């Protein structure tokens, strides 16, 4: 399972070139390139309104670009983990039923996926009773039970406490290693970016900078967009030595300030 054929490098899952979306007299995004290979983790970061979601939706083929073009691998299966959603109490939904929302997995596959994300005991629990971290894991299990070629995660750790965030990032990396799927992550929470990210695309209507997490962190465009203070508090999470990002409390305490955009 862990070794995938090398053809992936030649055939990207998604190749969006120079895409632009024009709405109500302005370009929401313009001249944006996104390429995702199998086994590759690509992270889109940027403040709210910077066009992260628009970029992701266009790359997924849900919006027709007004400029540029998008190529998808044929019969691409997408697994989507939405941004912290709340499910109305009126909708009775157990974790197992959630898993069958868009696919028809076998009971064994469901059990396997729940086991994989570490919540094998919660299959019969109503989703409304789960904690933030448990619910994110359930959503992740729902996405991977589809055996996706591409996993799309929109703010996967929102509403999860810091140690939980680290665990979920670990899980995402493991899933990538085991299944060989490509991963597109969307994040406006700049405080933790996965070190395993192969490519960071920093957006502000256009691509303001891109590259490895380290190079983006040092680029002047990034500093200008998010401010020096934000850059200083950004922690690149490394899964083998998590002491590197300093005292946890200090990092979490830096949420106030003008660079923080909630909602």
């Amino acid at each position, binding site marked *: 399972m862990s070794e995938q054929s090398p053809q992936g490098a030649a055939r990207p899952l998604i190749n969006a070139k120079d895409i632009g979306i024009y709405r109500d007299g302005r370009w929401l995004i313009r001249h944006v390139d996104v390429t995702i290979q199998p086994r590759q983790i690509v992270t889109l970061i940027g403040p709210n309104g910077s066009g992260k979601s628009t970029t992701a*939706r266009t790359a997924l083929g849900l919006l027709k670009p007004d400029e540029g073009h998008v190529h998808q691998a044929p019969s691409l299966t997408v697994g989507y983990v*939405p941004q912290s959603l709340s499910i109305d109490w009126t*909708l009775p939904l157990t974790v197992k039923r959630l898993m069958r929302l*868009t696919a028809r997995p076998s009971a064994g596959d469901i059990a396997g996926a729940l086991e994989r994300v570490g919540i094998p*005991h919660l*299959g019969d629990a109503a989703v409304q*009773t789960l904690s933030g971290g448990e619910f994110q894991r359930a959503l992740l299990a729902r996405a991977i039970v589809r055996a996706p070629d591409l996993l*799309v995660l929109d703010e996967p750790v929102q509403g999860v406490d810091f140690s939980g965030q680290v665990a979920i990032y670990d899980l995402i990396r493991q899933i990538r290693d085991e299944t060989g799927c490509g991963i597109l992550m969307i994040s406006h929470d700049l405080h933790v970016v996965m070190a395993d990210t192969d490519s960071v695309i920093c957006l502000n209507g256009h691509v303001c900078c891109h590259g490895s997490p380290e190079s983006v962190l040092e680029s002047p465009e990034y500093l200008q967009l998010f401010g020096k203070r934000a850059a200083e508090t950004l922690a690149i999470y490394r899964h083998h030595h998590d002491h590197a990002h300093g005292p946890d409390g200090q990092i979490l305490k830096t949420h106030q300030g003008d660079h923080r955009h909630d909602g």
Partner: protein
Amino acid sequence: MMDDFFMRAMVAGIGLALMTGPLGCFIVWRRMSYFGDTMAHSALLGIAFSVLFDIDLMIGVFAVAALIALLLLLLQRRGTLSTDALLGILSHSTLALGLVMVAAMPWVRIDLTGLLFGDILAVSRLDIVAIYVGGAAVLGLLAWLWRPLLAATVNPELAAAEGLKPDRARLLFMLLMAGVIALSMKLVGILLITSLLIIPAATARRFSPTPESMALLAAGFGAVAVALGLFGSLELDTPSGPSIVVAALVLFLISLAAPRLHKAQAKRAIEKGHR
């Protein structure tokens, strides 16, 4: 058996409840009860147009309700007024327009009370055929639409990303609602249609572990409410449409007293896991 007006009312009402139960679940889940009300209120405008252009009432009501749904989608896209305000405008202006148009046509005799509150005891055999054939079509379409609609209810972005076309599901669902309103208007009346959609679904919630069981239970509770309401109206000589709604309300109130099955189950599952 069908010669008896009471039996006809019973058969028609139960047929209606089987359709409104599952559909009503989606209205509750998607928080669309005000939207349902708006479409129901537009039915009077549909009747006025049907009379004016001499077309079948059900077709006229369906067409106008569907148009109102499309109009709402268009206005929502412009994004100037909130959906809440738009619904308020559409709901009462279509009702008022319908009332004005009906009054402006003195040559037609329309039983306004019957339209507003329904007249289930006047149901004909043809109406019963329409309800069962139309109802089967509505339920068939809903079953076909179930997966994308449920996924879109949980999260439209998720449904879209995984290829389930949530916008199309939503549009078809609105057309289904227009169909149900056209089919049920004669029986329970314009002002009471949404209660048959919402109250049985709300009653079923506490006893349902899955969306599917909630839909089935809602249909069952609706049918029981129809039966109780009709017998009650016979016994107490009360108007039948409102009596059915009161019966549904009584069932709902009883359900509130019942223990929360679902919560208890969920707790147990969690406790088991954390052992």
